[in-house]
């Protein structure tokens, strides 16, 4: 049977029935599969001392932010116990980073994650940090555990670059996923056995980008010092919270509701079409820690 086209009018219908008028702006909340009851947990931590200067993280503060958020996420009292829930000494661990020049994951974050993986008993030789070379990197080919860490930013073709998209480097030809504004990015998590192996998603909100311009889709003008980190074991939930913060910043900055161009529908379809995780804010337990000023959510 031919698939029926989803049109703008479908979203207008949802918006008309919804108690919140922003349904179209935020997502593609058309349920494509009957959902089983599911939920997710996301921790947002902020610290006003997270950055030494613009784009330069404070290593000690970053380590503490990661420790506090991950122990809260996993219900442990100390970071090593928490990390032992994610990795075991025999694991080979790939820390999937992001090297995008204007806003990279940063070595401060990479090293903070690596330190705790080692504290949990994994040998340094069995820990890789990589982005664009993951398909050639032996440690990533053999990885039994992946830690997914990248900054949040608007993206010219998918709406938002977040944790779901960060695994695109595992595919041989990334443009193959560009169709319909990267609607089906979530499928790569299944095709490349990433869903089970990714034990932690870290969406960096230290200096997120809320708007993009030009071929490089970047200007410092549209980056702000939010000084936050989101962590979750659910890549969809962490992106769903991240995109709400970006949208809130856009509303604050532009003085009107300006949806992302294009909408980051891959986040919602990762849930409703591909069952990768939870995108509905009502089903996400969001725990907020630390600095509250300008939290936007």
């Amino acid at each position, binding site marked *: 049977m031919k*698939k029926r*086209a*989803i*049109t*703008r*009018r479908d*979203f*207008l*219908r949802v*918006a*008309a029935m919804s108690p919140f008028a922003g349904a179209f702006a935020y997502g593609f909340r058309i349920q494509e599969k009957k959902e089983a009851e599911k939920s997710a947990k996301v921790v947002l931590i902020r610290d006003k001392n997270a950055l030494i200067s613009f784009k330069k993280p404070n290593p000690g503060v970053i380590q503490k932010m990661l420790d506090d958020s991950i122990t809260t996420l996993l219900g442990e009292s100390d970071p090593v116990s928490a990390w032992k829930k994610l990795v075991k000494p025999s694991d080979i661990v790939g820390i999937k980073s992001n090297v995008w*020049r*204007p806003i990279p994951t940063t070595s401060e974050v990479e090293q903070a994650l690596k330190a705790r993986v080692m504290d949990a008993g994994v040998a340094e030789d069995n820990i890789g940090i990589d982005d664009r070379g993951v398909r050639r990197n032996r440690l990533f080919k053999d990885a039994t555990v992946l830690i997914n860490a990248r900054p949040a930013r608007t*993206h*010219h*073709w*998918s709406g938002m670059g977040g944790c779901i998209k960060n695994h695109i480097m595992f595919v041989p030809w*990334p*443009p193959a996923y*560009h169709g*319909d*504004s*990267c*609607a089906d990015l979530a499928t790569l998590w299944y095709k490349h056995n990433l869903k089970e192996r990714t034990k932690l998603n870290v969406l960096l909100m230290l200096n997120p980008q809320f708007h993009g*311009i*030009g*071929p*490089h*889709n970047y*200007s*410092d*003008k*549209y980056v702000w010092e939010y000084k936050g980190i989101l962590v979750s074991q659910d890549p969809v939930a962490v992106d769903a919270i991240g995109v709400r913060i970006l949208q809130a910043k856009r509303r604050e900055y532009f003085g009107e509701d300006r949806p992302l*161009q*294009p*909408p980051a529908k891959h986040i919602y379809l990762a849930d409703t079409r591909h069952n990768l995780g939870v995108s509905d804010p009502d089903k996400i337990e969001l725990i907020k820690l630390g600095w509250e000023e300008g939290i936007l959510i």
Partner: protein
Amino acid sequence: MEDTPKDDKIALGDLLPQEINGWQAETKDELYDPQTIFDYIDGAGEVYRSYNFKQLLARRFTKEGKPDIVADLFDMDTSKDAFGVFTHDLEGEDAGIGQGSTYNGGLLSFWKDRFFVSLYSEEETEDTRKALFALGEKVASSIQKEGKKPDIVSLLPSENLAEKSAHYFHNHMILNYHFYVSDENILLLDQQTEAALGIYREDNERSYILVVRYPEGKKASQAYESFMLSYMPDATELGLVQTEDLKWTGAKLHQDFVIIIFNAPSRFLATGTIEKVEDRIGQI
């Protein structure tokens, strides 16, 4: 004003200087084509591919203690597409360079002839701003000819057309970028179709006029039927429907054109606007 003929060989590198305000070009330029552009600008490459670009030359300029400047020079093959890709992102102040330009947050963009030029500083300072404008002037003056804008853009009524809101494009991915219509290509847009989209503002209301020209009337007819079936199967005989947000959408087939107005505040405005576009078609 005609496009530089395609057999008029211009080496892209010759259009850019080696030095500007103390910033020196790195020794090696980078060249990209529609297959390799993703290596350079990731998913944004889809935008330039959708405008049929042929080649991109990227040159990085450096100066001790200053942010780098990146010059990206796109050969779009035709002036229509150079203009079109320029209209993809119109935010910013008019920089007065080339045949149309904007400056915003450390990014200077302009088009001239069949070229689209993006000049970008990795951080914005007063010095980089001056250098970008100087570089822009230099590049624009080294492009000798001017090109024609696509005439379909002139079909958009000018009354209430929001400033810097007229976009020219070919395919449905770009349409959806500016105004989401459908996940499927229900208007049968492709690299041969030409489309103009205008955003209209009146009393805080926003409506959208889309005009699409197909290579032939038969294709336009098929596209019109496809759109009506998918988007407004409940339309009246006049091609009008009141949508769920209580606004009006109207569509009409006119020769090899399909004309659509979305979000019109009234049915009268919807029909009146379509008639205006039809009148303009008669004039081109």
